[in-house]
């Protein structure tokens, strides 16, 4: 601490006042700094701190969500690999059709969660269906992240005409509600694949779904990436790299991309949740995963007419969808909260 104050520190007048304020802000515990200006500071402060604390140490909710996701991913992946001792998801046991817990006609012996209206084992259907749903959702989001991410990066980083063209392209796609666009794309793609595959070997419906839902997610994810890339491109370290004469592509990949990626990861979790719902919606509308291959959506879609007699067929996959979406939403929120903390610490 120098005995003589440095020259550039005026002591009074409006300038000095600002300096004092800055002093105070630096030195005081944040609680008071907020108290100076705000009426409801304590509530906000307490709430905010609580959230930050939750960000630092994972709460019970986050562990439950992680637990559920691990369980459901293992359940469906292992089933698909044939490791689990499950019945075939397509084999019919005529005697137990429509039977199950809460069903009008009673439960089905040998099938803990009952059977669907064709007498297929629900546990097997749910496990294999989970694979379809998760595969389609993850695939679609990956597609969206790759294409939306690249386009968004280009728009946000280069700006100017590139930005104008890409942003208006995004806007055109965003002018069509997502479900409508996905529905139209699936319909057109199915039409396209069935008329082009002359030998009758149609492309797996799952890939068409991935493509359709993926395309719909491109402008959404693209816009978010663009916003993030735009903010980061204006940071000092990027300007510094520019000033040093680094090539734009290099700056984009080495400086901006690593900062944009974490933000995209939290969005990705939310996006997967949305994609699971999208797959369900399309299946219920009859353009989802093609039966007899199960997906959570088409189990509901096929038997929603039997809801009165056999509610378990509809509500079991519905419950799995709900819990998975809830977990993904929750984890997405946790990740976002953690990222915010890191950003504010910079």
């Amino acid at each position, binding site marked *: 601490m120098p005995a003589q104050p440095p020259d550039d520190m005026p002591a009074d007048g409006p300038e000095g006042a600002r300096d004092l304020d800055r002093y105070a802000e630096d030195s005081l515990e944040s609680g008071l700094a907020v108290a100076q*200006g705000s009426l409801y500071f304590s509530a906000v402060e307490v709430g905010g701190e609580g959230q930050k604390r939750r960000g630092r140490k994972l709460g019970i909710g986050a562990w439950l969500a992680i637990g559920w996701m691990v369980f459901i991913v293992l359940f469906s992946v292992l089933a698909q690999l044939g490791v689990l001792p499950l019945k075939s998801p397509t084999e019919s046991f005529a005697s137990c059709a429509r039977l199950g817990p809460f069903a009008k006609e009673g439960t089905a012996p040998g099938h803990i969660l009952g059977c669907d209206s064709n007498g297929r084992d629900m546990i097997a259907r749910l496990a294999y269906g989970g694979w379809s749903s998760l595969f389609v959702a993850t695939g679609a989001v990956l597609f969206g992240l790759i294409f939306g991410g690249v386009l968004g990066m280009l728009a946000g980083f280069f700006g100017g005409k590139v930005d104008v063209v890409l942003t208006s392209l995004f806007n055109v*796609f965003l002018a069509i509600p997502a479900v409508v666009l996905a*529905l139209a794309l699936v319909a*057109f793609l199915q039409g396209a694949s069935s*008329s082009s595959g002359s030998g009758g070997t149609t492309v797996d419906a799952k890939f068409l779904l991935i493509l359709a839902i993926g395309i719909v997610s491109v402008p959404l994810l693209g816009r978010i990436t663009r916003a993030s890339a735009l903010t980061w491109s204006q940071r000092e370290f990027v300007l510094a790299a520019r000033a040093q004469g680094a090539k734009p592509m290099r700056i984009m990949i080495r400086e901006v991309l690593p900062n944009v990626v974490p933000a995209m990861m939290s969005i990705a979790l939310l996006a997967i949740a949305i994609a699971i719902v999208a797959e*369900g919606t399309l299946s*219920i*509308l009859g353009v989802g995963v093609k039966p007899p291959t199960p997906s959570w959506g088409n189990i509901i879609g096929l038997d929603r007419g039997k809801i009165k007699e056999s509610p378990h067929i509809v509500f079991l996959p519905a419950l799995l969808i709900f819990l998975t*979406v809830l977990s993904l939403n*929750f984890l997405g929120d946790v990740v976002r909260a953690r990222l915010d903390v890191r950003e504010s610490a910079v």
Partner: protein
Amino acid sequence: MAAARLIGRRFLQLAVVLLLVTFFTFSLVRLLPGDPAKTIIPFGTEQQRAQLNQDLGLDKPFLQQYVNYLGVPIIRSDGTSGLLQGNLGRLYATNQPVTDSLKQSLPISLQLVLYAQVLALVIAIPLGVLAAYRSGTRTDRTINTTAFAFLAIPNFVLALVLSYFVGARLQWLPTAGYQPGWLDPLFDSSRSSTIFSGWSNNHIRYMILPVITLAVGQVAIYMRLLRSDMIATLQENFITMAKAKGVPNRRILFRHALRPSSLTLLTVAGLNIGTLIGGAIVVEVIFGIPGMGTQIGTAIFAREYVELQSYILVIAFIFVMINFIVDFLYIVLDPRIRRARATA
């Protein structure tokens, strides 16, 4: 006039977006690999297909087809009318104009979406204000947690839950069907409103479950948005000033804090019309309501691509128009923008 120029510019943007949407949907149909005629009459002869292609104008060059489709008056090559004349095309199978089915289904979906939006806002605004006012307390946490859970319920799941418990088990409300409301007669004079008729076949009775289904998710979104904006506003100096004037809390919340806090809500409410329209499709299918969603589903199965294309276009048009209007509502809500935008 700055304001007039602003409106002009926004209108131009609007037109460009709509033009690109038409081009996109048009290309999607026309660029399908393979022959649309083959899709429509898979078992017809070559001759029949060629005839069909000619009838549909599909033998002309692509851009020519697009211009015809739009119906641009000056460069139109033949006598047919296009979009600009209100011609949305005809169904392949019946040769009925698409506008016929649109007249029936559009008002149904519009009412459904409108009710859901109004219901969502009516519930979300007081809840959001309350949560913000009590932020950090148990009330706030309860509202927030509930909202978070509701956010994770897909429309189709809620629709099935409601139709099973309220409809099938309790039998309080119908689970399928529709009766015309106040908007239907305006589009199709042969239909008459059932709003004032008996409860058993009343429009409202049939709309309750679908509307609740659509509204629940939106309530959660709107409430969370308003809460966070409201918390920020409640920290503003003018709120302390209002308190120091002796203004009661209720008035501070609803008269001083709500309006400046509702700008984001307004934007999102506009954008979410899209989500609602999307949600309405599956809700209509589950509740057996003959709206646009059901119509789109039918069109997909019947491979009526022209109909599908027209429906998408109409939805996009409505969506873009609503957000155009939202932009102007902004100006009403915030006088600061009136100047900032006019000078920008």
